[in-house]
């Protein structure tokens, strides 16, 4: 099943705090509504994120995953990286050094599209059959 929906790249504001979260959420939420939303958040300008900002990011990731999509972070500033690590959410998000790489990661060929070779153990069974016949 292919998904030709474009990847949306959004710039995260400098401070993703209690006052900025409702504004940013309002912009982000419509992008999460369609099936398989594919979003990249450009975090290069981020200088501060508080717990409200982290909660919003986690909620958005959850929403995206519910709809079989994903939300990825790109070009994460040092400040944002430190905050994500501090709050133990750095491993929750997929992060990329650049937006291009994050976008490209969405377009990677899905595993099911790759022709699978015969499993390694099939040759073992072949050998066993041969031995059986020989005996």
């Amino acid at each position, binding site marked *: 099943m292919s998904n030709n929906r474009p990847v949306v790249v959004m710039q995260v504001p400098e401070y993703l*705090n209690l006052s900025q979260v409702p504004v940013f959420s309002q912009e982000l939420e419509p992008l999460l509504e369609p099936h398989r939303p594919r979003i990249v958040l450009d975090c290069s300008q981020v200088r*501060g994120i*508080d*717990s*409200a900002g982290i909660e919003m990011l986690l909620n958005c990731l959850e929403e995206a995953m519910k709809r079989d999509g994903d939300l990825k972070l790109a070009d994460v500033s*040092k*400040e944002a*990286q*430190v*905050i994500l*690590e*501090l*709050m*133990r959410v750095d491993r929750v998000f997929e992060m990329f050094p650049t937006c291009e790489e994050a976008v490209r990661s969405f377009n990677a060929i899905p595993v099911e599209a790759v022709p699978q070779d015969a499993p390694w153990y099939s040759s073992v069974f072949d050998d066993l059959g041969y031995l059986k016949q020989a005996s």
Partner: protein
Amino acid sequence: MTGAIIIVGAELPHSPLRPALPASDPTHPTLPLGCVEVLGRSVVDRILDALHRSAFDRVVALADAAKAWPVEMNHDRPSPRFVQDPWGEVAVELQSCKAAGIDTVVLIRPSAYAEVNVADLLQCHRDEKAPITRAFLDLRPLDVWVIDASRLESSEDVLPLLLADECHAYPVNGYVNFLGHPRDLRRLVVDCFNNTCRLRPEGQEIRPGVWANEGVEVHRGARIVAPAFLGRGSRIEEQCLITRCSNVEANCHIDYGTVVEDSSVLPNTYIGIGLDISHSIVHGDTLLNLEREVTLQISDNGVIRSNRVLRREQYSQPQSALRMAGTQ
């Protein structure tokens, strides 16, 4: 007869010999790192204590009144005297020593933690018969001088003499930490735990490699992995982990499930629930990540914040309050 003058917070003019300006605590821009409590006591406090316990006939402690720094130190000895013109006051004190028959004066500006053999330094100064001897680590000068007070003119400005190239150089062989950057505080802690220097944590070694000062509360579900230090009155909640040469200084509160790893939590700091503090120095609402060289001021009180109940005379910003605290 010998005397000692310690001068805290006074700046030296920048010179090519001093590659870095004196460092400050990132959270209190005017607070010299020597005044920051590390392993239970600040470097300044430790030096003052050592001077008072030594055989000096006279010990004078001066502090720059223009700097906000903690005045609460060891209660068994007099507090430093806050002065407006610290270097001018040094000159006055030197004359006063001269008048009292104290011919040799050790002057210390605690901009670094240096283990100097003072007896050897004094002997070197006497042997060389130099008017001023200054301690050096290799080619880098330390702010430790021995001054022959009897050879000073009454009207002489002392600062140019201290910075002059004619000072006799005394080579220091002991451990030196220049406290030039907050990361040096971390290095000092690690060096202490590794026995690289003679500095010892305050309090008692409750388990091999784990020091705790008075009034520490550790939940039975918390883990303290040696080497580590817990400052007086600090509280470590359930499921916390303090590890890898971390020090939690006085009156800190580490809340449920937080990990403090290779980090220093400076006095009066609250660290919230379920956080990962790694390779950092935290003080109040400020976090300095040493790995990424990032300083963050976190406005979210639930994450980190100052845990301090301020007494007016402590850590005060207005100079008047400092002067008030400095009066004996």
